[in-house]
């Protein structure tokens, strides 16, 4: 079967399993909610201040929540050594990588959809700039987080203390993406500065790291 065919079937399998167990989504949701609430009463902000820092807060919350999802989606493949069944088959490693990344992307997207209204309410947010830029920043930023997270997730499942190692190696790598996401979000919310450059930057970042991940994933998957 082709790379796309296996991608589709693996993604369908992952979504079906998530739908039944709701492991990742539940943990993410709860965690994100906690973060939003705690941040919200830690900082007592005016509307103007809110617009300045909301970008940063949202992305920090999403980063932590994404790590929760990433651990879950790979943990699923370790139970019963079911990942060995994939490795033994002739199915290409790239399909697994893309399927996991897209699955994680969808979970984080669901989280974004649920968290954004909360942020708007708690911080009385109103955007000065065009909303479609915020959506674009969300999509590109989301992909940036999950593409690296999925790759490093595959690395960290082979180590001890995997729940600790994943954020440890993911966070520094995500810093440029984080900066760009926050830059684009803040520019749009406050109406100051252009979101154009950060968005392009994010796009390039996404392309580069997706390609590198695709290239190296087979090596990482077949390592013992």
């Amino acid at each position, binding site marked *: *079967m082709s790379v796309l065919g296996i991608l589709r079937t693996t993604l369908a399998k992952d979504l079906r*399993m998530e739908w039944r167990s709701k492991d990742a989504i539940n943990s993410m949701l709860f965690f994100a909610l906690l973060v939003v609430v705690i941040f919200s009463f830690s900082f007592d902000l005016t509307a103007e201040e809110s617009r300045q820092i909301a970008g940063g807060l949202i992305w920090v919350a999403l980063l932590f929540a994404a790590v929760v999802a990433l651990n879950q989606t790979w943990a699923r493949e370790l139970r*019963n050594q079911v990942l060995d069944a994939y*490795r033994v*088959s002739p199915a290409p490693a790239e399909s697994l990588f893309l399927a996991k990344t897209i699955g994680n992307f969808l979970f984080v997207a669901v989280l974004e959809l649920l968290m954004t209204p909360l942020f708007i309410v708690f911080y009385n947010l109103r955007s000065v700039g065009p909303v479609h830029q915020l959506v674009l920043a969300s999509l590109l930023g989301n992909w940036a987080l999950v593409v690296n997270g999925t790759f490093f997730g595959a690395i960290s499942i082979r180590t001890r203390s995997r729940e600790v190692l994943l954020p440890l190696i993911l966070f520094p790598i995500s810093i440029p993406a984080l900066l760009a996401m926050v830059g684009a979000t803040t520019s749009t919310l406050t109406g100051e500065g252009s979101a154009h450059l950060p968005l392009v930057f994010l796009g390039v970042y996404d392309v580069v790291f997706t390609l590198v991940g695709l290239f190296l994933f087979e090596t990482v998957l*077949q390592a*013992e």
Partner: protein
Amino acid sequence: MTLTPDNPAVSLNDVSKLYGRFAALRMVTADFAPGRLYLILGENGAGKSTLLRVIAGLIEPSHGKLTILGSSDHKAVKAHLGYMAHASMLYDELSGRENLAYFANLYGIREHALCAQAIRTVGLDPTLERRVGQYSQGMRQRLSLARAILNDPRILLLDEPFSNVDVGSAKEMTRLLGSMRDSGKTIFLVTHQPALLEGFADESVYMSAGRVIERVDHRAPTLEAKR
């Protein structure tokens, strides 16, 4: 390629596997002819599982050459291998049919009737909607075997398939393996219960400390003393 007794199904040449200072496999050189059922026996830590995992392609040998079905390119022959371990290698949250449908896709198998067929072959009901997580151990092992034979592999690698399996299921699985061997498959079976395969195994391969120390052919005209 057509296999004759002169063309082994699996051929190992000085294959070693090192983990730091520990040698799991030590310069194993052996040829395995096609269409036979090999029992791999030995104490814990002898390297039996490592041997199977090396043939399956899950472990890369540190030294030596491995030839499977006449080819040294492991990726090319993956479609002809079936592997089963003590762990079920199945998704607990999916049903039997859903599990097999997914794995069939990995091998490029579109006809899902084959999945139902494989499930029936191991004596399970393909219409069972129960999640695998709720299966008994015997059912789980049977389904795992169904997964391993899904792609009609020419070489079957089974690592302790009878652990914690009830005697009835074990006997049925053994009969099935015998008939698969008769149809030309090459089967490698690691087990601590060799008595179960009395009369079915063609050869017993004894391993110790990473080496093959003895091979006893059960079909040879003159009987050799067994260990």
